[in-house]
Protein backbone atom coordinates (compact mmCIF):
# COMPACT_ATOMS: atom_id res chain seq x y z
CA UNK A 1 0.00 0.00 0.00
CA UNK A 2 2.70 2.43 1.07
CA UNK A 3 4.73 1.91 -2.10
CA UNK A 4 1.71 2.28 -4.32
CA UNK A 5 0.60 5.35 -2.44
CA UNK A 6 4.14 6.74 -2.33
CA UNK A 7 3.91 8.21 -5.79
CA UNK A 8 0.55 9.78 -5.16
CA UNK A 9 0.26 13.36 -4.08
CA UNK A 10 -1.65 14.33 -1.01
CA UNK A 11 -5.14 15.20 -2.13
CA UNK A 12 -6.88 17.76 0.03
CA UNK A 13 -10.50 18.79 0.17
CA UNK A 14 -11.91 21.59 2.25
CA UNK A 15 -15.62 20.90 2.45
CA UNK A 16 -18.16 23.20 4.04
CA UNK A 17 -21.74 22.16 4.65
CA UNK A 18 -23.03 23.82 1.49
CA UNK A 19 -20.08 23.68 -0.90
CA UNK A 20 -16.59 22.41 -1.55
CA UNK A 21 -14.43 25.38 -0.67
CA UNK A 22 -11.14 24.19 -2.09
CA UNK A 23 -9.71 20.98 -3.44
CA UNK A 24 -6.38 20.08 -4.91
CA UNK A 25 -2.99 18.50 -4.28
CA UNK A 26 -0.88 19.68 -1.42
CA UNK A 27 2.58 19.22 0.02
CA UNK A 28 1.47 19.71 3.58
CA UNK A 29 -1.63 20.50 5.58
CA UNK A 30 -1.47 22.21 8.94
CA UNK A 31 -4.56 22.21 11.11
CA UNK A 32 -5.40 22.65 14.74
CA UNK A 33 -7.20 19.78 16.41
CA UNK A 34 -8.62 19.86 19.88
CA UNK A 35 -5.38 18.16 20.97
CA UNK A 36 -3.05 20.64 19.33
CA UNK A 37 -1.59 21.48 15.94
CA UNK A 38 -0.97 18.72 13.44
CA UNK A 39 0.92 18.75 10.21
CA UNK A 40 -0.08 16.16 7.64
CA UNK A 41 2.42 15.04 5.03
CA UNK A 42 2.17 12.39 2.37
CA UNK A 43 1.60 8.82 3.63
CA UNK A 44 0.26 9.93 6.95
CA UNK A 45 -1.41 7.24 9.01
CA UNK A 46 -5.21 7.22 8.86
CA UNK A 47 -6.54 9.56 11.46
CA UNK A 48 -9.87 11.08 12.33
CA UNK A 49 -9.80 13.99 14.70
CA UNK A 50 -11.87 16.91 15.81
CA UNK A 51 -10.83 20.42 14.87
CA UNK A 52 -11.06 23.50 16.98
CA UNK A 53 -12.05 26.92 15.68
CA UNK A 54 -8.82 27.91 14.04
CA UNK A 55 -6.87 28.44 10.85
CA UNK A 56 -6.08 25.65 8.43
CA UNK A 57 -3.12 26.03 6.11
CA UNK A 58 -2.59 24.06 2.95
CA UNK A 59 0.75 24.29 1.15
CA UNK A 60 -0.10 23.70 -2.47
CA UNK A 61 1.94 21.03 -4.21
CA UNK A 62 4.67 22.28 -6.54
CA UNK A 63 4.25 25.97 -5.69
CA UNK A 64 4.93 28.32 -2.84
CA UNK A 65 1.26 29.12 -2.54
CA UNK A 66 -0.43 28.61 0.77
CA UNK A 67 -4.19 28.33 1.01
CA UNK A 68 -5.38 29.75 4.30
CA UNK A 69 -8.86 29.10 5.56
CA UNK A 70 -10.75 29.57 8.78
CA UNK A 71 -12.85 26.69 10.07
CA UNK A 72 -15.26 26.66 12.94
CA UNK A 73 -14.86 23.22 14.43
CA UNK A 74 -15.63 20.19 12.34
CA UNK A 75 -13.14 17.42 11.77
CA UNK A 76 -10.16 16.23 9.81
CA UNK A 77 -9.90 12.83 8.25
CA UNK A 78 -6.77 11.43 6.68
CA UNK A 79 -6.64 8.13 4.80
CA UNK A 80 -4.83 6.82 1.72
CA UNK A 81 -3.31 10.22 1.00
CA UNK A 82 -6.67 11.90 1.04
CA UNK A 83 -7.26 14.65 3.52
CA UNK A 84 -10.79 15.86 4.09
CA UNK A 85 -11.44 18.83 6.27
CA UNK A 86 -15.09 19.17 7.08
CA UNK A 87 -16.66 22.03 8.89
CA UNK A 88 -20.04 23.70 8.90
CA UNK A 89 -18.44 26.92 7.78
CA UNK A 90 -15.14 27.30 6.01
CA UNK A 91 -13.95 30.61 4.67
CA UNK A 92 -10.86 31.20 2.59
CA UNK A 93 -8.65 34.02 3.81
CA UNK A 94 -9.31 36.09 0.68
CA UNK A 95 -13.06 35.85 1.16
CA UNK A 96 -13.06 37.27 4.66
CA UNK A 97 -14.16 40.85 5.20
CA UNK A 98 -11.84 42.06 7.91
CA UNK A 99 -14.05 44.99 8.93
CA UNK A 100 -17.10 42.78 9.30
CA UNK A 101 -15.25 40.22 11.35
CA UNK A 102 -13.81 42.92 13.60
CA UNK A 103 -17.29 44.26 14.25
CA UNK A 104 -18.50 40.74 14.96
CA UNK A 105 -15.57 40.20 17.33
CA UNK A 106 -16.37 43.37 19.25
CA UNK A 107 -20.01 42.39 19.54
CA UNK A 108 -19.21 38.86 20.67
CA UNK A 109 -16.69 40.12 23.23
CA UNK A 110 -19.34 42.38 24.67
CA UNK A 111 -21.61 39.38 25.15
CA UNK A 112 -19.08 37.23 26.96
CA UNK A 113 -20.43 36.05 30.25
CA UNK A 114 -23.99 36.59 29.05
CA UNK A 115 -24.13 33.25 27.25
CA UNK A 116 -21.95 30.32 26.21
CA UNK A 117 -22.47 31.02 22.54
CA UNK A 118 -20.49 34.25 22.83
CA UNK A 119 -17.20 32.55 23.63
CA UNK A 120 -17.57 30.35 20.60
CA UNK A 121 -18.33 33.36 18.47
CA UNK A 122 -15.22 35.11 19.74
CA UNK A 123 -13.08 32.11 18.87
CA UNK A 124 -14.63 31.88 15.44
CA UNK A 125 -14.15 35.55 14.76
CA UNK A 126 -10.55 35.43 15.96
CA UNK A 127 -9.81 32.47 13.70
CA UNK A 128 -11.27 34.28 10.73
CA UNK A 129 -9.31 37.40 11.53
CA UNK A 130 -6.07 35.44 11.76
CA UNK A 131 -6.79 33.77 8.45
CA UNK A 132 -7.42 37.11 6.79
CA UNK A 133 -4.24 38.57 8.26
CA UNK A 134 -2.15 35.64 7.12
CA UNK A 135 -3.38 36.07 3.57
CA UNK A 136 -2.80 39.79 3.44
CA UNK A 137 0.63 39.18 4.95
CA UNK A 138 0.36 42.11 7.29
CA UNK A 139 0.60 39.84 10.31
CA UNK A 140 -0.90 42.43 12.62
CA UNK A 141 -0.78 41.25 16.20
CA UNK A 142 -3.61 41.50 18.64
Amino acid at each position, binding site marked *: MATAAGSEALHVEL*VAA*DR*TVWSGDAAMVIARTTEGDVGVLRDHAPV*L*SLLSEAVVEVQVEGTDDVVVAAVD*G*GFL*SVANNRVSI*LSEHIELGEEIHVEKVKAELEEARGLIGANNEAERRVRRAEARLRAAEKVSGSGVGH
Partner: protein
Amino acid sequence: MAVSLREYRARIKSTESMKKITRAMELIAASRIIKAQQRAQQAAPYARELTRAVSAVATFSNVDHPLTKEEENPKRAAVLVITSDRGLAGAYSSSVLKETERLAERLRDEGKEIDYFLAGRKAEAYFKFRSRPFVESWTGFSDQPTYDKAAEIGRALIEAFLKEQGEEGDVDEVHVVYTRFRSMLVQEPTAVRLLPLEVVEADEGAEAPAPEDLLPLYEFEPSASEVLDGLLPQYVQSRIFYSLLQAAASELAARQKAMKAATDNADELIKKLTRIANQARQAGITQEISEIVGGVNALADAQAAAND
Protein backbone atom coordinates in the same frame (compact mmCIF):
# COMPACT_ATOMS: atom_id res chain seq x y z
CA MET B 1 -75.98 41.02 -27.75
CA ALA B 2 -73.40 43.74 -27.94
CA VAL B 3 -73.10 43.90 -24.16
CA SER B 4 -72.18 40.27 -23.83
CA LEU B 5 -69.62 40.60 -26.60
CA ARG B 6 -67.90 43.27 -24.57
CA GLU B 7 -68.05 41.02 -21.53
CA TYR B 8 -66.41 38.19 -23.40
CA ARG B 9 -63.64 40.48 -24.58
CA ALA B 10 -63.00 41.61 -20.99
CA ARG B 11 -62.78 38.02 -19.83
CA ILE B 12 -60.36 37.15 -22.60
CA LYS B 13 -58.21 40.09 -21.59
CA SER B 14 -58.12 39.14 -17.91
CA THR B 15 -57.38 35.51 -18.76
CA GLU B 16 -54.52 36.68 -20.94
CA SER B 17 -52.96 38.72 -18.17
CA MET B 18 -53.40 35.81 -15.77
CA LYS B 19 -51.66 33.62 -18.28
CA LYS B 20 -48.75 36.05 -18.39
CA ILE B 21 -48.42 35.80 -14.61
CA THR B 22 -48.53 32.01 -14.49
CA ARG B 23 -46.10 31.80 -17.40
CA ALA B 24 -43.68 34.08 -15.54
CA MET B 25 -43.98 32.00 -12.37
CA GLU B 26 -43.37 28.86 -14.37
CA LEU B 27 -40.20 30.30 -15.86
CA ILE B 28 -38.97 31.58 -12.49
CA ALA B 29 -39.54 28.19 -10.90
CA ALA B 30 -37.76 26.47 -13.78
CA SER B 31 -34.68 28.65 -13.44
CA ARG B 32 -34.61 28.25 -9.67
CA ILE B 33 -34.82 24.48 -9.85
CA ILE B 34 -31.46 24.39 -11.57
CA LYS B 35 -29.99 26.46 -8.76
CA ALA B 36 -31.65 24.28 -6.13
CA GLN B 37 -30.26 21.17 -7.76
CA GLN B 38 -26.82 22.71 -7.88
CA ARG B 39 -27.04 23.53 -4.20
CA ALA B 40 -28.05 19.96 -3.45
CA GLN B 41 -25.08 18.75 -5.47
CA GLN B 42 -22.71 21.09 -3.69
CA ALA B 43 -23.91 19.85 -0.32
CA ALA B 44 -23.38 16.23 -1.32
CA PRO B 45 -19.61 15.99 -0.61
CA TYR B 46 -20.11 17.12 2.98
CA ALA B 47 -22.86 14.58 3.57
CA ARG B 48 -20.82 11.85 1.92
CA GLU B 49 -17.66 12.49 3.95
CA LEU B 50 -19.65 12.81 7.13
CA THR B 51 -21.43 9.51 6.54
CA ARG B 52 -18.09 7.88 5.83
CA ALA B 53 -16.59 9.23 9.02
CA VAL B 54 -19.55 8.23 11.14
CA SER B 55 -19.55 4.70 9.79
CA ALA B 56 -15.78 4.56 10.37
CA VAL B 57 -16.17 5.44 14.02
CA ALA B 58 -19.14 3.15 14.37
CA THR B 59 -17.24 0.24 12.86
CA PHE B 60 -14.16 0.59 15.02
CA SER B 61 -15.70 1.36 18.33
CA ASN B 62 -18.61 -0.03 20.23
CA VAL B 63 -21.20 2.52 19.43
CA ASP B 64 -22.91 3.61 22.54
CA HIS B 65 -24.00 7.14 22.18
CA PRO B 66 -27.09 8.90 23.50
CA LEU B 67 -28.11 9.73 19.92
CA THR B 68 -28.11 6.09 18.85
CA LYS B 69 -29.72 4.69 21.98
CA GLU B 70 -33.18 3.25 21.53
CA GLU B 71 -35.54 3.98 24.36
CA GLU B 72 -36.98 0.73 25.69
CA ASN B 73 -40.46 2.07 25.95
CA PRO B 74 -40.90 5.01 23.57
CA LYS B 75 -43.77 7.24 24.62
CA ARG B 76 -43.37 10.40 22.62
CA ALA B 77 -42.28 11.05 19.08
CA ALA B 78 -41.30 14.31 17.44
CA VAL B 79 -42.32 14.86 13.84
CA LEU B 80 -40.61 17.50 11.72
CA VAL B 81 -42.87 18.52 8.83
CA ILE B 82 -41.19 20.26 5.92
CA THR B 83 -43.57 22.19 3.66
CA SER B 84 -43.34 25.32 1.55
CA ASP B 85 -43.83 28.91 2.60
CA ARG B 86 -45.98 29.84 -0.34
CA GLY B 87 -48.78 28.17 -2.22
CA LEU B 88 -49.35 27.92 -5.97
CA ALA B 89 -47.37 24.70 -6.07
CA GLY B 90 -50.18 22.27 -6.75
CA ALA B 91 -50.63 19.56 -4.17
CA TYR B 92 -47.06 19.92 -2.85
CA SER B 93 -47.78 21.01 0.70
CA SER B 94 -51.02 19.11 1.12
CA SER B 95 -49.42 15.82 0.10
CA VAL B 96 -46.72 16.34 2.73
CA LEU B 97 -49.41 17.06 5.29
CA LYS B 98 -51.34 13.97 4.22
CA GLU B 99 -48.20 11.88 4.65
CA THR B 100 -47.77 13.45 8.09
CA GLU B 101 -51.28 12.42 9.06
CA ARG B 102 -50.58 8.88 7.95
CA LEU B 103 -47.39 8.77 9.99
CA ALA B 104 -49.14 10.32 12.98
CA GLU B 105 -51.85 7.68 12.83
CA ARG B 106 -49.26 4.94 12.76
CA LEU B 107 -47.39 6.42 15.71
CA ARG B 108 -50.59 6.82 17.68
CA ASP B 109 -51.43 3.20 16.99
CA GLU B 110 -48.08 2.33 18.53
CA GLY B 111 -49.17 4.23 21.61
CA LYS B 112 -46.95 7.28 21.15
CA GLU B 113 -47.86 10.87 21.63
CA ILE B 114 -46.66 13.32 19.03
CA ASP B 115 -44.86 16.64 19.25
CA TYR B 116 -44.89 18.56 16.00
CA PHE B 117 -42.04 20.69 14.71
CA LEU B 118 -42.92 22.62 11.58
CA ALA B 119 -40.91 24.13 8.76
CA GLY B 120 -42.71 26.32 6.24
CA ARG B 121 -45.63 28.68 6.52
CA LYS B 122 -48.08 26.22 4.96
CA ALA B 123 -47.62 23.68 7.74
CA GLU B 124 -47.92 26.42 10.34
CA ALA B 125 -51.15 27.69 8.78
CA TYR B 126 -52.53 24.16 8.64
CA PHE B 127 -51.92 23.60 12.34
CA LYS B 128 -53.05 27.04 13.41
CA PHE B 129 -56.27 26.81 11.44
CA ARG B 130 -57.14 23.56 13.18
CA SER B 131 -55.84 24.98 16.48
CA ARG B 132 -53.60 22.00 16.95
CA PRO B 133 -50.59 22.48 19.16
CA PHE B 134 -47.02 22.41 17.87
CA VAL B 135 -43.74 22.87 19.66
CA GLU B 136 -41.83 25.11 17.33
CA SER B 137 -41.95 26.37 13.79
CA TRP B 138 -39.48 27.88 11.36
CA THR B 139 -40.56 29.84 8.31
CA GLY B 140 -39.25 32.02 5.53
CA PHE B 141 -36.62 29.88 3.82
CA SER B 142 -38.43 27.03 2.08
CA ASP B 143 -37.20 27.73 -1.46
CA GLN B 144 -33.59 28.39 -0.51
CA PRO B 145 -32.68 26.80 2.80
CA THR B 146 -29.34 27.63 4.41
CA TYR B 147 -27.24 25.34 6.53
CA ASP B 148 -27.65 27.65 9.51
CA LYS B 149 -31.39 27.05 9.47
CA ALA B 150 -30.86 23.31 9.31
CA ALA B 151 -28.43 23.56 12.23
CA GLU B 152 -30.98 25.53 14.23
CA ILE B 153 -33.68 22.94 13.59
CA GLY B 154 -31.23 20.14 14.32
CA ARG B 155 -30.23 21.67 17.65
CA ALA B 156 -33.86 21.95 18.74
CA LEU B 157 -34.60 18.35 17.79
CA ILE B 158 -31.43 16.97 19.39
CA GLU B 159 -32.12 18.89 22.56
CA ALA B 160 -35.64 17.45 22.77
CA PHE B 161 -34.33 13.97 22.04
CA LEU B 162 -31.59 14.06 24.66
CA LYS B 163 -33.91 14.95 27.52
CA GLU B 164 -34.61 12.20 29.99
CA GLN B 165 -37.88 10.36 29.72
CA GLY B 166 -40.54 12.04 31.80
CA GLU B 167 -38.84 15.41 31.53
CA GLU B 168 -40.82 18.28 30.03
CA GLY B 169 -40.54 18.27 26.24
CA ASP B 170 -38.74 14.94 26.01
CA VAL B 171 -39.15 12.85 22.88
CA ASP B 172 -37.91 9.32 22.30
CA GLU B 173 -37.97 9.33 18.53
CA VAL B 174 -37.60 11.95 15.82
CA HIS B 175 -39.25 11.56 12.43
CA VAL B 176 -38.96 13.81 9.40
CA VAL B 177 -41.58 14.18 6.69
CA TYR B 178 -40.28 15.83 3.55
CA THR B 179 -40.66 15.57 -0.20
CA ARG B 180 -38.02 13.63 -2.00
CA PHE B 181 -36.98 14.98 -5.37
CA ARG B 182 -36.77 12.01 -7.71
CA SER B 183 -37.03 13.87 -11.00
CA MET B 184 -38.61 16.96 -12.50
CA LEU B 185 -41.83 14.99 -12.86
CA VAL B 186 -41.88 12.86 -9.73
CA GLN B 187 -41.60 14.13 -6.19
CA GLU B 188 -42.76 11.89 -3.43
CA PRO B 189 -43.57 12.76 0.15
CA THR B 190 -41.43 10.60 2.41
CA ALA B 191 -41.36 9.92 6.12
CA VAL B 192 -38.09 8.77 7.68
CA ARG B 193 -36.95 8.18 11.22
CA LEU B 194 -34.03 10.44 12.03
CA LEU B 195 -33.35 9.60 15.68
CA PRO B 196 -32.28 7.36 17.26
CA LEU B 197 -29.71 7.08 14.50
CA GLU B 198 -29.35 3.77 12.83
CA VAL B 199 -25.72 3.42 11.98
CA VAL B 200 -25.50 1.59 8.71
CA GLU B 201 -23.04 -1.21 9.06
CA ALA B 202 -20.56 -1.89 6.30
CA ASP B 203 -21.90 -5.38 5.66
CA GLU B 204 -25.13 -4.08 4.17
CA GLY B 205 -25.79 -5.43 0.68
CA ALA B 206 -24.67 -8.73 -0.78
CA GLU B 207 -21.77 -7.65 -2.96
CA ALA B 208 -18.32 -7.34 -1.45
CA PRO B 209 -17.15 -3.74 -1.08
CA ALA B 210 -14.52 -2.51 -3.49
CA PRO B 211 -11.02 -2.12 -1.99
CA GLU B 212 -11.27 1.67 -1.91
CA ASP B 213 -14.53 1.37 0.02
CA LEU B 214 -12.86 -0.56 2.81
CA LEU B 215 -12.39 1.69 5.73
CA PRO B 216 -8.82 2.26 6.80
CA LEU B 217 -7.82 1.71 10.41
CA TYR B 218 -8.32 5.17 11.73
CA GLU B 219 -6.75 6.56 14.81
CA PHE B 220 -9.15 8.74 16.70
CA GLU B 221 -8.14 11.94 18.37
CA PRO B 222 -8.84 12.66 21.15
CA SER B 223 -10.83 9.39 21.43
CA ALA B 224 -13.41 7.49 19.47
CA SER B 225 -16.23 8.45 21.76
CA GLU B 226 -15.33 12.13 21.69
CA VAL B 227 -15.05 12.11 17.92
CA LEU B 228 -18.46 10.49 17.79
CA ASP B 229 -19.75 13.15 20.15
CA GLY B 230 -18.61 15.79 17.71
CA LEU B 231 -19.72 13.99 14.58
CA LEU B 232 -23.21 12.79 15.34
CA PRO B 233 -24.89 16.15 15.92
CA GLN B 234 -23.34 17.38 12.68
CA TYR B 235 -24.54 14.26 10.96
CA VAL B 236 -28.09 14.89 12.15
CA GLN B 237 -27.91 18.49 11.00
CA SER B 238 -26.55 17.50 7.65
CA ARG B 239 -29.40 15.01 7.23
CA ILE B 240 -31.89 17.76 7.98
CA PHE B 241 -30.12 20.08 5.56
CA TYR B 242 -30.36 17.38 2.92
CA SER B 243 -34.10 17.03 3.55
CA LEU B 244 -34.55 20.79 3.28
CA LEU B 245 -32.66 20.93 0.01
CA GLN B 246 -34.66 18.06 -1.44
CA ALA B 247 -37.86 19.73 -0.30
CA ALA B 248 -36.80 23.01 -1.91
CA ALA B 249 -36.10 21.35 -5.25
CA SER B 250 -39.40 19.46 -5.02
CA GLU B 251 -41.31 22.61 -4.19
CA LEU B 252 -39.95 24.41 -7.22
CA ALA B 253 -40.61 21.43 -9.48
CA ALA B 254 -44.17 21.16 -8.16
CA ARG B 255 -44.66 24.87 -8.68
CA GLN B 256 -43.35 24.71 -12.21
CA LYS B 257 -45.70 21.85 -13.00
CA ALA B 258 -48.70 23.58 -11.44
CA MET B 259 -47.97 26.82 -13.25
CA LYS B 260 -47.49 25.03 -16.56
CA ALA B 261 -50.91 23.44 -16.11
CA ALA B 262 -52.37 26.84 -15.25
CA THR B 263 -50.84 28.40 -18.36
CA ASP B 264 -52.17 25.59 -20.54
CA ASN B 265 -55.60 25.97 -19.01
CA ALA B 266 -55.53 29.69 -19.63
CA ASP B 267 -54.65 29.02 -23.27
CA GLU B 268 -57.62 26.73 -23.63
CA LEU B 269 -59.92 29.15 -21.87
CA ILE B 270 -58.83 31.95 -24.18
CA LYS B 271 -59.50 29.77 -27.22
CA LYS B 272 -62.95 28.87 -25.98
CA LEU B 273 -63.85 32.43 -25.07
CA THR B 274 -62.60 33.72 -28.41
CA ARG B 275 -64.86 31.26 -30.17
CA ILE B 276 -67.89 32.27 -28.12
CA ALA B 277 -67.07 35.92 -28.61
CA ASN B 278 -66.84 35.45 -32.38
CA GLN B 279 -70.12 33.63 -32.35
CA ALA B 280 -71.73 36.45 -30.43
CA ARG B 281 -70.30 39.01 -32.83
CA GLN B 282 -71.54 36.99 -35.80
CA ALA B 283 -74.99 36.65 -34.23
CA GLY B 284 -75.06 40.39 -33.71
CA ILE B 285 -74.19 41.05 -37.35
CA THR B 286 -76.74 38.53 -38.58
CA GLN B 287 -79.41 40.11 -36.49
CA GLU B 288 -78.56 43.59 -37.73
CA ILE B 289 -78.73 42.43 -41.36
CA SER B 290 -82.03 40.72 -40.83
CA GLU B 291 -83.33 43.86 -39.13
CA ILE B 292 -82.23 45.99 -42.11
CA VAL B 293 -83.66 43.54 -44.62
CA GLY B 294 -86.85 43.38 -42.62
CA GLY B 295 -87.01 47.18 -42.54
CA VAL B 296 -86.39 47.48 -46.30
CA ASN B 297 -89.07 44.88 -47.01
CA ALA B 298 -91.52 46.67 -44.78
CA LEU B 299 -90.77 49.98 -46.55
CA ALA B 300 -91.16 48.35 -49.96
CA ASP B 301 -94.45 46.82 -48.88
CA ALA B 302 -95.67 50.13 -47.57
CA GLN B 303 -94.73 51.92 -50.80
CA ALA B 304 -96.37 49.24 -52.93
CA ALA B 305 -99.51 49.64 -50.87
CA ALA B 306 -99.42 53.42 -51.32
CA ASN B 307 -98.91 53.10 -55.11
CA ASP B 308 -101.86 50.83 -55.44
